[in-house]
């Protein structure tokens, strides 16, 4: 699936729920299902520090695609990380750099998880793109 297709699927899944509690239940479920990160990557080097919850993000580049694994100490944040991984993991650096993440707005996460909420959503996206740029530069 392309980045666009994955995003459209997420938007459809969230559109099934009108109630905010249900949307958050979905995020919690996604958070619980997120594949575990290798504990050796849960260290300061891979920490994206937000004010409220911690996020660890690790990139693995095989020369073609970047695979992200991640974790957070808060489950809702894990749910958000899970969404970003669905969209951006196992993609080429170019795809990641060019990705327009419109699903965040469409499922109403941006207004609920604005930068002042310090949830780290924007830092996570920025960090994923930075890794992609770094691998791209290394490849050339």
């Amino acid at each position, binding site marked *: 699936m392309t980045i666009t297709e994955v995003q459209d699927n997420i938007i459809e899944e969230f559109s099934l729920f009108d109630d905010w*509690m249900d949307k*958050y239940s979905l995020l*919690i479920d996604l958070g619980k299902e997120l594949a575990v990160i290798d504990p050796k990557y849960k260290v300061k080097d891979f920490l994206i520090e937000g004010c*409220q919850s911690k996020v660890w993000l690790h990139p693995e580049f095989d020369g073609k695609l970047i695979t992200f694994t991640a974790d957070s*100490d*808060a489950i809702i*944040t894990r749910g958000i990380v899970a969404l970003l991984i669905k969209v951006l993991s196992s993609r080429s650096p170019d795809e990641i750099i060019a990705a327009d993440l419109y699903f965040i707005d469409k499922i109403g996460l941006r207004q609920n998880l604005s930068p002042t909420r310090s949830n780290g959503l924007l830092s996570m996206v920025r960090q994923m793109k930075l890794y992609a740029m770094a691998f791209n530069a290394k490849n050339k």
Partner: protein
Amino acid sequence: MKDIAEIRADFPILKRKVYGKPLVYFDNGATTQKPQCVIDTVDEVYKSYNGNIHRGVHFLSDMSSEAYEGAREKVRSFLNADKREEVVFTSGTTGSINGIAFSFGERYIKPGDEIILSRLEHHANIVPWQMMCERKGAVLRVIPINDKGEIILEEYHKLLSNKTRLVSVTQASNALGTVLPLKEVIDAAHSVNVPVLIDGAQGIQHGIVDVKAMDSDFYVFSGHKIYGPNGIGVLYGKEKWLSELPPFQGGGDMVDKVTFEKTTYNELPFKFEAGTMNYPAAIGLSSALDYVLKIGREDIASREKELLKYATGRLSAIKDLKIFGASDRKISTISFHIKDIHQYDIGMILDKMGIAVRTGTHCAQPVMDYYGIDGTVRASLCFYNTIEEIGLLAEGIEKVKSMFA
């Protein structure tokens, strides 16, 4: 005292809904909501008599100046200070402490001198002193706390020495709710001729504050935490200190005579009020203090005591919920953890139920470090909250637990 329905009707925002649910506002420690009279007062300043204070010859300027000085007198009597010269308006608690830390440092502090704070301070009563200490080569000493979240007075007595220049402590902990034994703290400092600053950010709104009875040398608070507008605060200082201290900001209105060679300063309190002050907010604060007096400070305190007692009982009954801060003397603030659920997750879900709480370190990281935690959920209640709202919080927490189970 007015009944609770009448009180709540005074605060327009309490009628609103969030996410389709009635608002339950339990973040009063961060900022309080405003009664209609305060909103009307500020509105009235801009609508009918706005003019810059202390400098115009015209009608509006006179009227604004008079209302602003009236607000100063209101604060004086609210604090039971001796003189209006002892009441300086600032931007808030943070502004007041930064100002005093700067001026006091300039006037009195030498390398090796010591300032005593407590472990319960929020960052506003830590960082300004740290900055001053760095500048002057002075040292911060910290009064430790016990597991109940109370300062250990014996340790405080040991810290007081001939190197101590000032003690600066909070009236009540914003993170745990503990009320400090101010009389003991102040008397001990005075017995060795050390002045004391009381940070009233979490104290002024919860009962009677009498600076003369407590004999504090400085007392600071923010208007927005006592139902007044944002952007206004108070620095009370005994006249003998304020006249000795140099100004912490330069500008218009604080001067007597200015030449490029030398400037002489205006008299108290204007020496500390440089530039255009936030007079509409000061006038609004005056209205807020009137409102608090009308409700009655004893009544506010006793109502909040009841709310605290009920909330502590309801929340303690929840399995796996742990309350931090177990002092017998607390403001109506409850900080808690639920086993295996991150405070951020709890706060996010409560928010979707219309319940506003604060999560995180509450700008008091040293307190969190003491307990070895990285944050709590804090419900800070005040007199306009209700028993029913506490019930909603308790039910909300049970719902959260079931969602994350």
